[in-house]
Each structure stands twice: as C-alpha cells, then as structure tokens.
C-alpha cells in the first residue's frame, strides 16, 4: 500500500513544484516513569510561526516516510508508542491551499484526498498506540491528522483550532467528517464542522477542544509537551485510563445532521454545496464504518475542488487575507503623516460611533463638535456609555476605560477643538451645501497639514473640496453600518487629493483595522451603487407586476445574507429612496426611482414586512399602497434581469475606473455587504453562470483566478 501512496504523492508533488514542504522529523526519547522508548514526529516546515506548517503532497510524502520508519520500529517492538506534534506555536494548519488552486483534473483532486487519507490512516494501524499533541494552531488537515491517533492532548495556550473547510467550500476530507462524529458524537461534530465554519470560520481555543472531547487531556502552555509525555507514560503504564462518553448513535445522530442542515440553510440557503456534502458524510458515518466515510470524503473533495464554489471561496479568502491588507493603488505608506488627535464634526449617532472607533483603535484624543451643547454632551455621553459596556463585558479594564474616557471630549467651538487636530472627519447632514460650509469652517481653524475626511455615502468628494483653499487634503472615508462590525472602508480619492493625504487615510484605516479599498470619486462609490442597482431591478420587476414573494425568492439561490426587502428595511426605505434618487440623477437610464418605494416612504412605513407570525409577511398596509403593472415574470426571469443589471453596472464601473480591478469590487461586496464567499463576492459567480459574457461579452476574471485553471 505504501508504494502506491508514494507514487500517488509523487505525481501530485510534480504538479506543485512551489510547495513549502513540511518535514516530519522522527526523534526518539525515553518516556518518563520508565514507560519505554518512544518515537516523536515533529511537523516543521523550517520557518518560524509566521509561516504555519501546511500539508502539500511533498509534506504528506515526508510524513509517509516517517510513518514507514515508526511502523517498522513498532512492529519490531523497539518503541512503545508514537507521538506527533508541531513546531513552536503551530501544530499544522491543514492542506496548502495553493496546491489545491492549481489542480485542473478530477483525478488529481481525487489523488490529494486519497493521498492524505492513505498517509493519515496508517497512524491508526500501527502496532503501538499513537498520540497527537496539539501544541499550537491546528486547522483542517492539522486537526485531522490528530484524529487518526489513538489519543490527543491539547495546550491551553492553543489559540485557534478549526475545521474551516466548509467555510472555504470544501469538506473536512482527510478523515474529519468520518472520524470526528465517531469520536465526540454527531451533534458536537456538527458544531465544529458546520456551525463554527459557517460562523465566519470561528476558532476554538484549547480548553474548548478538551471540553468538546476532541482531546483527552488539557495541559498549560508552559510545559505542554513535557506534561503530554508524562501523561502518555501514564496511559501506557496503565495508571491513567482514558474514558470517553458513549455517543448517541440513534435519534441524536439524525437530529444533529438535521440541525446542521438547518444551520446551512440559514447561512447559504442551499446555494453552496460544501456544508451539505459534509453533512451527508456525517450522516453516513453513523454506523461507524470509517473507511466508507473516507471514500465518501475523497469523492466529495474531488467534486468540490473541481467546482466553482470552492474556487470562489479560496479567491474570496485570498482577497480578504491578502488584497484586503495591501490595498491596490494605495500610495507609499511612508508618505503618511502621524495622526495624534482626531476631530469629529457632528455628534449624532454616526459621528459618535466614529468617535468611539477612532478612540479605541488610535487611542489619541478625539474631539466632537456640534451646533449646540446638548448635542455635544449627548455624543460624549454615548461614547462614555459604550466604554462602560466594554468595561462590564471585560473587554477593557478600569484603567483602560479611564484612559479612553479621558481622551474623548466635546466642544462647541471648532477653533478650540480642532486647532491641533491631524485628522478631522465630518458626519453631518448629507447635503453638499452643508458639507462645504462645514469644511470651510474647519479649514479656517485646523492646522495646515490636517486631513479633512468625509463619511459621505453619495456626494462628490471633489465638489465638497472644490471651495477650499487646500482641496488636496480632502479624502472620502466611507464606513458601512454598523461601523464597529463591517470591515469595509471605501477610501475615496477626489480629483485634487494628494498622495500624502491619501497615504495618511490608508494609514489611519489600517490602524482602525478596516479593509480599505481605493475608490474613484464616482456616484455612490462601490457597494451602494451595486446594491442600489440590484435593489432597483428587484423594485422594477415588482413595479412592473411580479409579486413581491416571487421577486424575493428569485435571488434566494445566491445565498445572500438577507433578502433584498429585508435589507431595505435594515437600511431604511427613506435612505434607500434617497440613494436611488441620487444615482438616478447621475445615471437616469439605469437607476430608476420606484414610485411604489416612494409611496411606502411617504406613508411613513419602515419596511415592507410585518413579523406578527414570527416570519416576514407582506404588510397589508404596504400591499394596499403597491401599484403594480401586469408583466409577471418567473423567478428565473427575475434572477436573469437582476444579475444582468449587476453585471452591466460592474462592467461600467470598471470601464469608468471606479476601482482598479474586479477583485476590488468583490472585496467591497464581501466586506461591506456581507456577500458570501461561495459567490466570491459576485464576479466569479457572474462569470461561471455565463452572465458576464451574455451582458458584457467577456468574463470579469482571468481563467484560474476564481475557477479551475485552463
């Protein structure tokens, strides 16, 4: 068997010459308490913890060779057990995604799945007990290699442990789906494989890994490996008996799978296959036949690797992890000026939220101003209240709370507040005259170097700056609500904005821990423009006669975080209307103003739905307001119209140079609107569904970027 595995991995390694290869060092040691000679395998890619250990085909081949050695020793009786652990701070973080991206053929994908299984499962077939010591970060295949061992220990200092496959569009396919439910029960396995993964890839800490029963023992980080080996000696000597609770292989198992399906439905609405494939394997693992499970994992892995959702998922993951951290088009960061004091014009809710964010992340003085003392006081007390909440939750200690509170002040007089501020952001009424007036007042009192930023969502930054003496220091700084949660920050370069101001803005964004995307000063920038076009088209088909329910259901297969009309309710129909009016003025041929939406706003309704039954139902009062035409479309027709509109709008935005590349559009939609990974934002989906070519005559992305390479 080993020979074929070797050949399999050799073939796979040839496809992936750039692999960072993990070594599997075998070292022998004498266990404490005279428990005998022990072989310890250390997984180590030779780099420090900033480059975590991964498994590509070459790495698997190394582990396979290490197992050859210990298998022989175990058979000869020269060792009493085998352990596996990682380099400092890292156990192993799973398959090397770069090695997955390059795969072009189903059989190569199958080889990766089978290669991992064939190597890992040898651990459970050794003539001696095997032990995994989860010393540090363990993800995906890292977690799985340990699941094939007889026993596991985990460090209390372990910061991150997960099976993130479903999050990316895969299944835990090196034993995770088959082994984990058989170890800890289906319900807990579903929490790890499905729930955490779909909950923005939530990570477990060491203690939770123990409490879930994945690890048999928990030791503190300071002497984790020593205590793991002492424990190993006790297990081998028989002084410690490992007992695991009986798992429910009856109704509980089925209920767990059903719970997993419900979670998947609520998150991806059936739109992405990974979670469902994983659940099928979990369901099939009920009888404990793990080899059958492994075969099903291989098949699922290969199918998913060749499918668009995984490619989109990896693309989205790379956008957020890489492009999001090195914004395309941002000027040299060395140009950035230090920001040691921040001014906020306005003390309303948005302004107060911004003040809180700047305060927490920059930890510099933040001054709020407004038109009367009462508003100023309200703004400051909002910030104080939020700090108190953080204190109560234990997120900050008393000293930090004192410090933050002392840093936020409010004044009426802008000259007093802003004379030594380096960065001043306005969040006043969305009206160009008002904003120009505010910036003129600020410019009169602020230092010459201060950046003037605007949180406008729809006005022209260049126009706002046009009447200033120094328009080059005005930057758009467009946050998304709720500002504390949504990562996106659209940084808008006005016509006259200079590189220093822009670099400072990007520097501040980084400190705010936001995902900054450079955007041209174009109407509604990126996210609001696309969402408005998207919603507008939904609204159009409703206005023309398609029932609300059909229009809503039409886009369900996309798996968006919420339906269009629920989103409208969250944004507020009045704001939605306002943005559509603004865009209608800029692009009257594509952006319409819905008379029905206008009627709903004028009637003072805050949404289309009532929730009396617990589920959204069309508000009868809204229904009475709607005046619809007689053109009734099917779901498919609605979906095609909406997607065509979105593809057209993105095509036009790229032609206008609103952002550098389609990737920036996707990054904005993922981080600013919560559009899902399995769509890759949206352009990978539009490409693979043929929408891009139908509308624009070409794809947005090069082949292989979010798809199987040519």
């Amino acid at each position, binding site marked *: 068997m080993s020979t074929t595995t070797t050949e399999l991995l050799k073939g796979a390694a040839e496809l992936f010459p750039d692999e960072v290869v993990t*070594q599997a*060092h*075998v*070292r*022998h*040691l*004498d*266990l*404490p308490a005279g428990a005998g000679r022990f072989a*310890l*395998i*250390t997984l*180590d890619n*030779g780099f420090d913890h900033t480059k975590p250990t991964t498994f590509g085909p070459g790495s698997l081949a190394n582990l396979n060779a290490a197992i050859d050695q210990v298998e022989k020793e175990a058979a000869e009786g020269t060792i009493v057990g085998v352990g596996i*652990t990682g380099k*400092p701070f890292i156990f192993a973080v799973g398959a090397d995604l770069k090695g997955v991206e390059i795969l072009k053929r189903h059989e190569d994908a199958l080889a990766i799945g089978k290669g991992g299984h064939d190597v890992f499962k040898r651990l459970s077939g050794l003539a001696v007990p095997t032990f995994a010591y989860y010393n540090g970060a363990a993800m995906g295949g890292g977690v799985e290699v340990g699941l094939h061992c007889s026993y596991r220990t985990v460090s209390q200092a372990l910061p991150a442990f997960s099976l993130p496959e479903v999050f990316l569009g895969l299944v835990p396919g090196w034993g995770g789906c088959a082994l984990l439910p058989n170890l800890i029960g289906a319900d807990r396995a579903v929490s790890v494989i499905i729930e955490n993964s779909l909950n923005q890839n939530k990570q477990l800490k060491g203690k939770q890994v123990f409490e879930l029963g994945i690890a048999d023992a928990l030791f*503190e980080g*300071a*002497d984790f*490996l*020593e205590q793991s*080996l*002492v424990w190993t000696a006790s297990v081998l000597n028989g002084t410690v008996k490992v007992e695991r609770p009986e798992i429910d292989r009856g109704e509980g198992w089925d209920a767990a799978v059903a719970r997993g399906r419900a979670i998947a439905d609520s998150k991806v609405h059936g739109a992405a296959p990974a979670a469902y494939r994983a659940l099928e394997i979990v369901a099939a693992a009920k009888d404990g036949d793990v080899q059958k499970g492994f075969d099903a994992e291989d098949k699922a892995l290969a199918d998913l690797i060749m499918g668009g959702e995984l490619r989109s998922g990896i693309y989205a993951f790379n956008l957020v992890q890489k492009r999001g951290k090195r914004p395309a088009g941002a000027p040299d960061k060395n140009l950035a000026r230090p920001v040691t004091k921040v001014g906020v014009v306005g003390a309303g809710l948005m302004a107060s939220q911004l003040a809180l964010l700047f305060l927490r992340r920059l930890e510099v003085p933040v001054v709020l101003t407004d038109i009367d003392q009462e508003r100023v006081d309200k703004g400051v007390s909002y910030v104080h209240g939020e700090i108190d909440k953080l204190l109560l939750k234990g997120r900050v200690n008393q000293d930090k709370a004192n410090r933050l509170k002392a840093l936020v002040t409010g004044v009426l007089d802008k000259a007093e507040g802003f004379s030594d501020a380096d960065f001043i952001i306005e969040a006043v009424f969305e009206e160009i005259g008002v904003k120009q007036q505010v910036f003129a007042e600020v410019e009169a009192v602020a230092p010459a170097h201060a950046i003037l930023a605007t949180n406008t969502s729809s006005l022209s930054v260049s126009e706002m700056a046009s009447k200033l003496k120094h328009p080059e220091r005005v930057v758009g700084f467009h946050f998304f609500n709720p500002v504390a949660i949504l990562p996106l920050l659209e940084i808008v370069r006005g016509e006259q904005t200079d590189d220093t101001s822009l670099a400072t803005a990007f520097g501040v964004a980084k400190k705010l821990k936001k995902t900054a995307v450079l955007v041209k000063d174009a109407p509604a920038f990126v996210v609001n423009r696309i969402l408005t076009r998207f919603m507008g088209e939904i609204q159009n088909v409703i206005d023309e006669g398609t029932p609300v329910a059909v229009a809503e259901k039409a886009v369900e297969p996309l798996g968006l975080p919420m339906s269009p009309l629920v989103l409208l309710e969250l944004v507020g129909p009045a704001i939605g209307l306002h943005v559509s009016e603004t865009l209608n003025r800029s692009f009257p041929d594509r952006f319409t103003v819905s008379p029905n939406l206008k009627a709903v706003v004028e009637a003072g309704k805050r949404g289309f739905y009532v929730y009396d039954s617990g589920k959204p139902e069309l508000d009868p009062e809204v229904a009475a307001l709607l005046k619809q035409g007689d053109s009734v479309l099917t779901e498919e027709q609605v979906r095609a119209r909406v997607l065509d509109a979105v593809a057209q709008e993105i095509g036009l935005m790229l032609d206008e140079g609103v952002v550098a590349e389609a990737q920036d559009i996707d990054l904005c939609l993922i981080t600013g609107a919560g559009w899902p990974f399995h769509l890759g934002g949206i352009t990978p989906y539009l490409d693979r569904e043929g929408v891009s070519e139908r509308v624009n005559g070409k794809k947005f992305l090069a082949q292989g970027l979010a798809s199987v390479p040519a």
Partner: protein
Amino acid sequence: MPRTVRDVVFVDGVRTPFGKAGPKGIYHETRADDMIVKAIRELLRRNPALDPAKIDEVAVAATTQIGDQGLTIGRTAGILAGLPQSVPGYSVDRMCAGALTAVTTTAGSIAFGAYDAVIAGGVEHMGRHPMGEGVDPNPRFVSEKLVDESALFMGMTAENLHDRYPSITKQRADEYAVRSQEKAAKAYANGKIQQDLVPISVRNTNSDVGETGWGLATQDEPMRPGTTLENLSGLKTPFRTHGRVTAGNAAGLNDGATASIIASEDFARENGLPVKMRLVSYSFAGVEPEVMGYGPIPATEKALAQAGLSISDIGLFEINEAFAVQVLAFLEHYGIADDDTRVNQYGGAIAFGHPLASSGVRLMTQLARQFEEQPEVRYGLTTMCVGFGMGATVIWENPHHKDAGGDK
C-alpha cells in the same frame, strides 16, 4: 518590637537534568528562562498543599544576568510559571553559589519574619551565556595587583590550589573523579537521582547533532559512567603545561536549572508541607581569589562555629565538585579520607555537571534524600567554592533524626 527568630526548613527541591553546554548539548535550542520556569512548575505540582498565592518571594540566581537570564529573572520566571501576579521576585548573583545564596538570603528573611514561604533556585545556561560573557573587569585589579591574573580563570585557580596542597596529586584527583562517576552511576541505577528531575522538552533543528525535532531530556547528559583512571590519565591539562587539572577531574560547562521551596517550619507544618531539612546555620567567607577553591574551608569554619558544632558532628557532606582538588583540599584540611562514605554519596558535579548558579540547590536536594534514607545522621552540610575567592556553607539538621529539633 520584640521578635522571635523562626526555624526555616527545606521543603522540597527539583532540578532539570543537566546538559552539556554548546552546539551539541541537549539544551542548545532551549531558553534558560523556560528551564527555571519548568522547574518551578514541577515544584508546585509536587506540592499541591502550597497555595501559590502564599508564596512571598521568588529568588532566582544566575551568574550572567543578560538575555534570557536577565530582566530580573526571579520576577519574569514567576509570571511565566503562572504564579499569581501578587507574588514578587528578584535575581541573585554569587556566581557558583547563586542558588545557595538565594536559599540563605530568603531563609534569613523567613527567620526574620518577612516571609513564610519562598521559591529559591538558580539557572545557568552556559551554552547561551559562556563564562565571562560581557564582563568588564576593572583595570585596577591588575595595575594595583589586587588579585593575581589567574583569579578570573577557574581552572588556573584550581592549579594554584594544587600548589597549596602539594600532597594532592593529579593521581589523587583522577581517582576522586573516577569514584564520583561510579557513585553517580550507582545512584542512577538505584533511582536516587531521577525522582527529583523535571523532564524538559528539547528541540533540535540541526541534523549534524542528531535526530531532529522535539525530544525529551530525562537524565543528566554530562555523565560518563565507566570512566577509568586510564581514561583520565591521558587528558590534557589546559590550564598549565604539566598541570593537574583536566576536563576529567573537574566539572564541565553545563546548562541547568534548580528550584526549591523554603519555608518557616510553622508554615510548612500548618500547610501540610514536607519538612526535608532544617536550617542550622550558613556562612560565607572570602579567600584570595587566585585560590578560590579554598573558600569552603573558612566558610565551613564559620558555619560550624555559629552552630556550636564541630566537623565530627557532620554525618553527610554534599560538596560541590567544581574541581576534584577543591574537594580534596577540604577533606585534607579536616582529616577526612578521600573516599569517606559520608561525602557525596550520589557522586557530584564531576559526573552530573555544574551549571554555575543553579548547583547549590542540587546539593540540597541530594542531601535531603540522604537524610531521608539515613535517619541516624543528625547533621549534614552543603558547601561550595565561589569565583573571585569565596566559599559558602550551609549546615542542615535531619528532621528524621530522633533528637531533631532538640538541644545538641
């Protein structure tokens, strides 16, 4: 305010296995602070009756207090070991007698009433911090002939000690060294040493040295069981041509850490902690730096005098074997035979190694085990020589003796 001096006891002691310093040593890729931290943690695991919050001080010795042995390692080790933040700590330096001084200094404070219980120990990673790293001796030492130039080179001071005791030949020193290795091997075979060792995980990334990856240090690396006189006779005498001091009859350059719990006797008894030894007296003495190995003699004289004891009252000796000649000089001074069975029953630093500032607590841990085995012995002493011309001696009473705690 009237005060009562309180009895001080040695509760327990542990140590890491000692390693050979340098690129081939087991601890080459291990931090010094991690070693002392792991020793402290083992000590606490072994003594669950000691509430960590009740520890009043952490005194950790190191000779070279820079890098991972710097930053007030007594404090940082406490935090790294997971002790409550309320437990303070400090660093100690008396070169080879560092850990011994950590014990006596805190013991004095316990007797005075400042502390109830402390952790005292030492660490020296001579691979990461070679002897003399960063030193800057005042030029007046030489210009004003305050010390002989050989004073800074311990091997030369040992040759000087041979000069002072012409009867102590290289042959006698080598014979002593062979016995030390034999006794250490026997102690290992009988499981006397391992029970107080803390296993330490050790990493090796250099395939030239041996197997790579994580391993576990469970025994002393420097030991050379089976050493014969013939093996030793041919060794070089690096400190003097035709000299007597060799790598075979001296301790090597080593890495290691030790830790002990020292407490007032009342605290130990109230908290159900073991009482392994009772402190009788301690003393330090200075001698000419160029014969630093002579130091234990005047230090012991003072300690005996304080205790009102004579050398014949001492039933067990733990003498640090920096050099065989230094032990032999001590024995010769007191008229004790080179192979007296009361001396270094488990062998000594020539076999186990001598990671400078950590060694003092090793002597105590071994003496405590011997007390346990030999309740008929009432008094024992631990003594060592110290660089720059000093000696350090602590006299202990065996609490297992029938008269323990009573008048002499």
